[in-house]
């Protein structure tokens, strides 16, 4: 309704709008990063950083990327400083977000160069690990998107992942990989259904319901694994889905091994994200689901059954999370360990927020978290001056930063977290 453009008004009046304040904060962040890169990374970088881009056995071998460490980092610092100053001078433009994103990427690159200076490091290996690490986060995030789009807050993703992992291992050992996967999806869906029942029918607080499901799943899986698995090891020895190289595409240097030489779960995650996007934004039932998340009473007056829509979508979310959970066992080690999801479900939730409640956004956010995770694992091997425990904190700190920095700017479905009581 505002016919008056704020930008005009602001320039005439020197008003401090939220945008200009935000731009100033970004400016500070960028200049801080520049200082960090210049003082810590650039001054302490010696020699060259070697990034391996391909494996000697690859179809096409690409030469290594060799970066002179100190010059690169001074350059990076200069670019960061430039971006920061630009934020102060011309803040509030649409470039703010791009600047801060580019700035973060440059800072990460500088950090990598500093850490690898004088050594060599498999970049392709790390990117490939990024994609793998992103899978459970992306699927967790997608499960969050599906249920929060119908306004059910899903803290239970962690429990659903754990249930999927457990079922995958148990049933995978009995029925083989595919059978295990199917059962994991079903059990995940079952917990989705239970969550829906608790919050929709029994009107339990959504966060409490989620936390309780997490506690319950943790209890059951830990109990069975110590009561049963410790005795019958054969029940916890499932086959693992191996990587399957897509012909031709898998041979492309760098990209091929990162994207097209992965296992079922990576491809599955991408397909599910596409299907979910189509479902939510281009189909009748997606439109109805979103209306239930935004304005359930309006949907109700139009004859859309709010309760069953929530049941169905939250159950679907559980199935997606069950599939994601199976990754931990069937997609990686084939064996279940107590609490093996280790909080990734919550990181999935953060990915959902960062991805603005959109499946594709959640996938992208998951890749960033996956990057943080694989980075710390690979760097622990290279040996950096930073203690490995601190590197291991990286994904968690990244999660906090992301949630703190972006939650204010993204808008959850309007009815998110609110129970709907029919009149």
């Amino acid at each position, binding site marked *: 309704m505002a016919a008056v453009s704020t930008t005009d008004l602001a320039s005439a009046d020197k008003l401090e709008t939220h945008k200009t304040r935000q731009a100033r904060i970004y400016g500070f962040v960028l200049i801080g990063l520049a200082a960090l890169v210049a003082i810590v990374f650039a001054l302490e970088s010696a020699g060259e950083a070697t990034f391996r881009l391909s494996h000697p056995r690859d179809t096409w071998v690409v030469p290594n990327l060799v970066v002179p460490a100190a010059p690169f980092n001074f350059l990076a610092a200069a670019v960061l400083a430039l971006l920061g100053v630009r934020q102060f001078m011309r803040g509030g433009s649409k470039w703010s977000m791009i600047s801060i994103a580019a700035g973060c990427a440059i800072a990460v690159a500088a950090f990598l160069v500093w850490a690898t200076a004088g050594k060599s490091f498999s970049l392709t290996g790390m990117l490939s690990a990024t994609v793998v690490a992103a899978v459970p986060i992306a699927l967790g995030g997608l499960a969050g998107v599906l249920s929060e789009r119908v306004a059910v807050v899903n803290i239970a993703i962690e429990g659903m992942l754990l249930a999927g992992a457990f079922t995958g291992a148990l049933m995978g050992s009995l029925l083989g990989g595919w059978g295990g996967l199917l059962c994991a999806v079903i059990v995940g869906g079952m917990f989705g259904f239970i969550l829906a029942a608790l919050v929709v029918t029994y009107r339990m607080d959504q966060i409490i319901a989620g936390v309780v499901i997490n506690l319950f799943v943790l209890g059951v899986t830990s109990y069975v694994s110590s009561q049963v698995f410790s005795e019958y090891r054969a029940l916890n020895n499932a086959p693992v889905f191996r990587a399957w190289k897509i012909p031709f595409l898998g041979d492309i240097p760098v990209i091929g091994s990162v994207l097209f030489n992965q296992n079922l779960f990576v491809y599955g995650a991408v397909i599910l994200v596409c299907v979910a996007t189509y479902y939510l934004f281009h189909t009748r039932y997606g439109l109805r689901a979103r209306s239930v998340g935004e304005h359930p009473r309006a949907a109700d007056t139009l*004859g859309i059954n709010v309760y069953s829509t929530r049941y169905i979508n939250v159950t679907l979310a559980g199935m997606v999370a069950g599939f994601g959970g199976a990754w931990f066992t069937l997609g990686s080690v084939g064996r279940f360990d107590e609490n093996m999801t280790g909080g990734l479900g919550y990181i999935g939730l953060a990915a959902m927020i960062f991805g603005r409640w959109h499946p594709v956004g959640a996938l992208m956010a998951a890749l960033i978290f996956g990057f943080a995770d694989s980075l710390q694992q690979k760097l622990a091997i290279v040996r950096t001056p930073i203690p490995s425990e601190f590197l291991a904190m990286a994904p968690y700190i990244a999660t906090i930063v992301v949630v703190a920095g972006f939650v204010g700017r993204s808008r959850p479905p309007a009815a998110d977290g609110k129970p709907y009581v029919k009149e």
Partner: protein
Amino acid sequence: MDVELRGITKRFGPVTANDDVNLTIRAGEVLGLLGENGAGKSTMMNILSGLYSPDEGQILIDGKPVDFEGPGDGIAAGIGMVHQHFMLVPVFTVAENVILGVEPTGRFDYLDLATARKQVRDINEKYGLQVDPDALIEDLPVGIQQRVEILKVLFRSAEVLILDEPTAVLTPQEVEEFFGIVKSLRDAGKAIVFITHKLHEIIEIADRINVLRGGRITGEGDPKTLTENQLAEMMVGRPVSFDVKKGPFDPKETLLEVKNLVVLRENDEIAVNHASFHVRSGEVVGIAGVQGNGQSALIEAVTGLHHVTAGSISFLGKDITNASARERHRMGMAHIPEDRHKSGMISNFTIYENMVLNTYYDDRFSNGPNIKWPEVLKTAAQYAIDFDVRTPSVYLKAGNLSGGNQQKMVVARELERETKLVIAAQPTRGLDVGSIEYIHSRLMDARDEGDGVIIVSSELDEIMSLSDRILVMFEGRIVAEFDATAGPVDKNAVGLAMAGAHE
């Protein structure tokens, strides 16, 4: 299509919302349904649209009894309802809102928005509604949103349209336009039920009037022969005077001075645009305007609840632009918030806790870190008596009170202390006539005792009857000022200003 309600009774626990109601709705006719808040109008219409099912009684369509089990059934039978609070998804487009629930689809359940747009345009042309199918609802003014609601029911080929308090958010000019649409619908053979508590509107638009009070039909009549006073008596059950008693206008020193106030919303949209005004002791300043034109942000800025981007506010001669809400409160600023459920009270707290919600820290009620609960209880009981809050006990949860009593509780809390300026936002929204009269008289008492009073209301009639001076807000600016002490203000002129037709 004709619809008949026979002996409809609906109870919610101990409350009987509808008691043996009989009603006939005919095609090509506007049926006016008059009743004050809480009379059972909405319940009845929700039964008719299938949202509620009646405990007793029958609905007949063209003489045949029907049985609705959900809102879908009402729509399927050709009964469409335009709710008082719009049932639109703000982040969807017009077309998406219109087709929701009856979507045209292609293969793989693909949402066929192209067809939807075309269908929306067709209806647009047929009834002269003029709505852009691709506009986002949240970007549309309320008047247009209402047309989207009408589009929705027409899209479902409704033959009976129920309009629940449709004019509440419109300017007088928009009301005229809206009546034009209603008439064209009636002439196209639709049956219209027009629900309102505004007497002059029902006389203007209705072909037949039914009056509802306490869940029963208490009167029927012909708008051509009935007078407003007769209708009012049928509606309330006793003679009603529309005049508010107030003392002679005798303004004294300036209490509040707002200069060039600019307030921005979270998304940097401008909410209040260089507003300047003042309030003097002993005068009532009414702020009129269509909902969403910056009145709420203005009040929040004045009461210290919203960040001020530019400009200044001074109160009792002191600059308070950056003072906290509590400081202003202590200086004698009272605030009756526009949404009592959201921000005026805590439903889960007891009445006595709500009575000291913003004075608990005062020396009267606290001693060091401790709250003196016995003192609080005693005071709360006195407030309840003074302000006619009807409750069995002050230990009751505030959420259990009726709307009128809740509002009286809030008003009691705000006025029962040394006040200099009373800011009342939508002070009577959704209340019954008795409570409205009571709250109006207390506000006027405050004025006569020398307080300044600001009243913000979307009910233009309320503003007109209470104010000594009327300010009109449009798109964040104060676009007009009317002096009501000299003589009656031209309602039409105020309406034009509300629509932005100034200068």
